[in-house]
């Protein structure tokens, strides 16, 4: 795991193209980076086999789908040791509006991404589901205004 798989500048160019548009054919990816279709296909397969190209995700406009509110929560557990982390993780993962849960080190123990229809819907999820979780301590909510994904170090 340490060091990772070696990739060259052409692989990086392929990753940049596929990251932005994973629906492109090997031929189209090849044209974008100056490779033949078979050469691009072989490299893409190698990147997939190495686990570097892990999969795809749909980029959806949440607003247009009726999910107008995304909130990031920082959660500090109150009684560590008494309530197991496993119990908390199981319970929080079962909430459908909680779309991402990360265990973190620092001021908070967990970071949650919550998607709701509107602020009233978010308040319902917060009060009825999240604040009722076992071991819940401090919560901080920040309402997301904008989000950008960047290509990263390619």
């Amino acid at each position: 795991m340490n060091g990772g798989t070696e990739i060259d500048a052409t692989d990086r160019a392929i990753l940049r193209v596929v990251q932005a548009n994973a629906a492109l054919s090997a031929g189209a990816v090849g044209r974008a980076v100056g490779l033949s279709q078979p050469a691009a296909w072989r490299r893409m397969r190698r990147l997939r086999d190495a686990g570097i190209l892990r999969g795809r995700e749909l980029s959806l406009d949440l607003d247009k789908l009726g999910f107008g509110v995304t909130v990031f929560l920082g959660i500090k557990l109150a009684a560590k040791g008494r309530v197991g982390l496993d119990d908390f993780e199981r319970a929080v993962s079962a909430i459908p509006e909680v779309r991402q849960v990360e265990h973190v080190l620092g001021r908070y123990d967990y970071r949650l991404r919550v998607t709701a229809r509107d602020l009233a819907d978010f308040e319902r999820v917060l009060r009825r589901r999240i604040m009722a979780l076992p071991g819940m301590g401090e919560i901080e909510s920040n309402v997301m205004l904008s989000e950008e994904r960047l290509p990263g170090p390619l």
Partner: protein
Amino acid sequence: MLDDLDRRLLRHWQAAPEMAAAELGALLELPAARVARRIEKLREAGIVRGVRGVIDWVALGYSVEVSLRFQLEKSVPGAFDAFLAAARDVPEVTQIQTFLGRVDVRLVAIARDLAHWQTLYRDRILALPHISEIEALMHVATVKTDQNLPI
């Protein structure tokens, strides 16, 4: 705006984004051409922005991921824009979110190891303009990641 078919299509597609129109058509028991036209309409309406390729940074040797939370000097005119523009220029930054709340901006940054993180943090992150407060949460594990919306 969305009808029942759009919703069924999106539910299946978001669960398996590698599927093409033909495979989605088989699931929905519809001709592939009809599904392809629907997908095109969803793209034109801006509901589907695209299909992103997901890169596993750990497999590329980036084992450290940090969530950086900033409060900015909001009294300075243009502080947000200057900060965001500078943050976009740091290659190791993979996500930027802005917020209403105690936190103004969050960045996700990745590094090869803790030594690389230390250099990145000192030379690039702390050099970003108009930082009033900064807090770091180090990623330990992803417990849940669910791209599927209850559409």
